[in-house]
């Protein structure tokens, strides 16, 4: 039971990528969940896979964690093929899925001990590791209570702890904060940042640019089974959003292009406009001073606006910038995204 990499002594990780996929494909009937995804994740980095519902994030994670077989292409984790050497791969990974997989009838301690035993840590080590993780995740007080009594945030923490039991060199987190309120989300981010140190490679999926920005060194944007852009949060913001966005809606849509002309030199990135709706967004770094300048210029140009504001760039902005379409590929998921966002905003505004 030695070494940071966990249970099978020190399984050698070949030089090179912690995760690499090549033209990975997966179809479900006629739906192409993954349509040739190639991605390389360097050891010790945190990579976020950013994309809306149905973009293929979960399918991608399920293939890399050996839960699903690809139709075509290759996927390797720590140099081992996820199909051919699935059992070796399972020794090297931890997974926290989209829904917390904790046994409600077991206590927190028992849940973690069970996972430890199934990683073949041995009884004593499994117990020690469970106690240690519960401590690190502020669950010590609840350690002897059935997981059924845990709050959503506590379940998430327990689930995350379970994925870390064997100190896996490669960790997969599928939407780790989905369904959490902003406070629990912040707490979980803190835990992820703190517990994922010492060379662990992490691939996480998320729908929130904010989350990707907060946690990851590298962000890959997934849309319709393709990776459409990849880079640091800074890079993505520069290409698509800036620190913040000035969002303008022109009252008379016909004046949109005129407005873009007037505002062209402002901001720190490319101005995006949608003439059909009269929407213009300007990526900025300096915020309010530019806002005043925008108002002045529009006023001088005699252009009426129906809405004007400064806001954080969202996944939608990145998507709009990269693909020219909004995050959703169907009406249904647009509605879903909108509802989710609405909820998120409401929670944030709550006292």
């Amino acid at each position, binding site marked *: 039971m030695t070494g940071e990499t966990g249970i*099978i002594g020190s399984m050698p990780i070949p030089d090179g990528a912690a995760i690499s996929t090549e033209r990975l494909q997966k179809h479900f009937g006629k739906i192409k969940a993954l349509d040739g995804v190639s991605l390389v994740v360097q050891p010790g980095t945190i990579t976020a896979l950013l994309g809306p519902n149905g973009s293929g994030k979960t399918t991608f994670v399920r293939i890399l964690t050996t*839960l699903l077989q690809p139709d075509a292409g290759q996927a390797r984790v720590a140099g081992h093929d996820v199909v051919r050497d699935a*059992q070796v791969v399972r020794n090297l990974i931890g*997974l926290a*899925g989209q829904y917390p997989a904790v046994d*409600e009838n077991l206590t927190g301690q028992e849940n973690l001990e069970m996972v430890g035993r*199934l*990683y073949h840590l041995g009884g004593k080590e499994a117990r020690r590791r469970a106690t240690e993780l519960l401590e690190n995740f502020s669950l010590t007080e609840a350690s002897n209570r059935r997981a059924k009594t845990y709050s959503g945030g506590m379940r998430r923490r327990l689930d995350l702890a379970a994925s870390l039991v064997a100190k896996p060199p490669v960790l997969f987190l599928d939407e780790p904060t989905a369904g959490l309120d902003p406070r629990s989300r912040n707490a979980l981010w803190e835990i992820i940042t703190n517990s994922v140190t010492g060379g662990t490679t992490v691939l996480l999926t998320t729908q929130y640019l904010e989350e990707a920005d907060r946690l990851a060194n590298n962000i890959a944007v997934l849309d319709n089974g393709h990776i459409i852009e990849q880079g640091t949060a800074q890079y993505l913001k520069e290409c698509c959003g800036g620190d913040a966005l000035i969002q303008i809606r022109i009252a008379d849509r016909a004046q949109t292009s005129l407005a873009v002309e007037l505002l062209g030199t402002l901001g720190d990135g490319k101005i995006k406009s949608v003439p059909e709706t009269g929407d213009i967004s300007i990526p900025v770094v300096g915020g309010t001073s530019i806002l005043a300048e925008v108002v002045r210029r529009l006023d001088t140009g005699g252009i009426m606006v129906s809405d004007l504001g400064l806001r954080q760039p969202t996944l939608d902005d990145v998507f709009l910038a990269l693909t020219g379409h909004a995050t959703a590929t169907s009406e249904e998921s647009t509605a879903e995204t909108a509802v989710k966002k609405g909820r998120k905003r409401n929670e944030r505004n709550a006292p």
Partner: protein
Amino acid sequence: MINSKLMPSTYRLVWTIPDTLVIARRNLLRFVRLPQLLIFSTVQPVMLLLLFNYVFGGAINAGGLSYIQFLLPGFLVQIVVFGSAQTSVGLAEDLSRGMIDRFRSLPMARSAVLAGRTLADTLRYTFLVLLMIGVGSIIGFRFHNGIPFAVAAVMLSVLFGFAFTWISAFIGMSVKDVETAQVAGFVWIFPIVFASSMFVPVETMPGWLQAFAKINPVTATTDTVRALSLGGEIITPLWKSLAWIGGILLVFLPMAVRRYRRIQ
């Protein structure tokens, strides 16, 4: 400490039993944590035994035996067959709650999740079988064939149930949601339990039903358990019953494990 140079297949094999025990323990803990579940899953079969004995007992001619003597051996088989249906529900629950995903991402033996579940369920109804014998003896049941045969009767019932838990495991892995598992897991059990020699002598049924009842594995097993308990022809029904048990395990165990490995 397991050697990292072990081949994955050897590695899996070595861990099959320990992993199975970890999962079985986890499944049994549920009953410790939910004492109400334990109480009610115990009360129900006791109640049924009493109802069958006192409601139908007077009306059924059991060929010279008192009805409890005729009923109890079959009732043991009924307990294990219905008990096995629970396996599909438990697995469907694990599947829907993401537990199966977690287990499948762990380096554990591939058959252990199913084997741990079937083992736990087998232990659960073994307890019920012993309890039924206890309750039965209070209301007049007696083994007539000595202790070794009585033990053999219990063992055959339990083994028969174990085979059925694998049919149930296959169903649980196939339906993927709890409600469907509840229906799909039970619906096929009623005809094979009732159209058998379990509650009434087969000769009292219409001819077409007799034909079914005679090839029914529940009939073969009930007849064997009855003969082991009370005396009578053992060998013929015993080999039929064992052939069914072997056949069911041979077909459904690999099919269930295959389903588990291929879950999308």
